[in-house]
């Protein structure tokens, strides 16, 4: 299952990482090298073995409805890159700017 440059481009798009061509090419090698070390797992016999989920915990605790929200010591404008009338402002979604783009 060798990782190709197309895979790297696809994965980077999923992860919203902008990569230069050089970095993308280098990641093909890095990922193949690292994933090569993972192949040993395919040889482990895991028939009938449960996946580890909820490690070290006994069931899911639930809270009562309501109660006090965790307070914010500072208002949103102390950390938001762009805030207007209480809204977070981001560049318009591409589906709402250029038809045909994703």
């Amino acid at each position, binding site marked *: 299952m060798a990782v190709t440059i197309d895979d790297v481009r696809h994965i*980077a798009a999923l*992860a919203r990482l902008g*990569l230069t061509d050089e970095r993308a090419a280098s990641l093909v090698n890095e990922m193949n090298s690292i994933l090569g070390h993972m192949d040993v*797992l395919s040889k482990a016999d895991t028939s009938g*073995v449960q*996946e580890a989920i909820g490690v070290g*915990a006994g069931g899911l605790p639930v809270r009562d409805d309501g109660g006090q929200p965790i307070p914010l010591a500072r208002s949103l404008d102390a950390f938001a*890159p762009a805030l207007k009338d209480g809204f977070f402002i981001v560049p318009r979604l*591409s589906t709402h700017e250029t038809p045909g783009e994703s």
Partner: protein
Amino acid sequence: MSAPGERAPLDTGRAAAIRAATAAGATSAETTVKQALSRAREVKAGRDGLNIFVSLDGEYLKEHAATAAQQLTDTEPGLLLGVPVAIKDNIATLHHPTTCGSRILAGYVSPYAATVVSKLCDAGAVPFGKTNMDEFAMGSSTENSAYGPTRNPVAPDRVPGGSSGGSAAAVAAGIVSVALGSETGGSVRQPASFCGIVGVKPTYGRVSRFGLVAFASSLDHVGVFGAQVDDAARGLRAIAGHDPLDSTSTSIPVGEYHLAHARPVKGMVVGRPREYFPDSLDPAVRARCDAAFEHMRELGMQVRDVSLPHTALAIPVYYIVAPAEASSNLARFDGARYGLRVAGAGLTGMYEATRSQGFGAEVTRRIMLGTYVLSAGYYDAYYRKAQRVRTLIADDFSRVFQSGVDVLFTPTTPTPAFALGAISDPYEMYLSDIFTVTANLAGIPAMSQPIGRVGGLPIGGQLMAAHFEEMKMFSVAYALERALGAGASS
């Protein structure tokens, strides 16, 4: 001015001594904080020296220390009364920024504090600045920080280990006696080993993760560094306990870890897992471990050879599970609500510009790996398979502990601290966690304590115990520390 490596251990630098002196009025939190600040200057903890702190607001700390001490005058002295505690930069604090060693959070000040920080304050401690780290805790050397590498106070040409290298260095340099770190695969124990101090990671769920910026949620732990076992025990006692804000935290009662020194170890069984002592192990490291085993025999403990057969699979499992969870946990850093925003073409362009400029190379690599192993068509072969093998690794430990073994003892790291820049291959770097990742995968408590030097550099011995058996682990650690005496640091 003494060179960092030649620092004489100061008894008054220990948490218990500071607490006693503060409670008795012989010193004040303010005075202690001033001493810590001057020690930081003395060892050149700043950017031009060891580069231990990402942020350290001395003026604020002096002021804040006085108030912290005042709050506790009419109550039973807190376990860490007047004790400055350095905090890794991925733990949310209200005053100092919380940047996770990343550009993407440069200048970000959390509007809420982590549960562990509130608990430190409740115990009378003074949160003391934020320490450098590998970006988002991804690394084993503290070289992957957007704010430059931290140097090992014992040998400044060496790395302090990582990812909690700044916190380890703050303790090793004698600035503080207690520091908080975090672990996903050994990021407290490995730097403790490299810096010649004590580092402990409790059972998963023992300490709240609320306010610890997530790397890999099922593997993340808050851990504690101490100059000595007692410092780590007190630190852990102060921050442990159930937190309703963390659904994976447990309500099992917390032990009095700092009282474990009084518990007998005679008759306890210490396991020696053969997979942690391969033929290729550095003979000097093996010799230090053998000496420790000899001490434990002399303490009346029984040493038993055991096997944890799936150990060799731990690194591959870890480097699938951790990046997978990280790829999801780091999705929130998108430039929309906080942190760095870099403009690009439209929304997608903003996302991509922000994240590619905000994250460093190792973080990018792991997000890529994690996204890949979770993506359609690869999930079963990688993620699902890894989570199954993870069960086998945890079962190895359960079997051994159920067979009557109380604690396991191994080297913490295969080698002492390596030189800055010495390891450039990512996978070779990953292998420095080879003896520590298993405890994170299984969720069991583990700690590292100094067991001597190899080639003049500290090396740590690792104790591991069954889930929630921190008391057993600390009782052995206290006894071994006493038995080793000065041998622990020579």
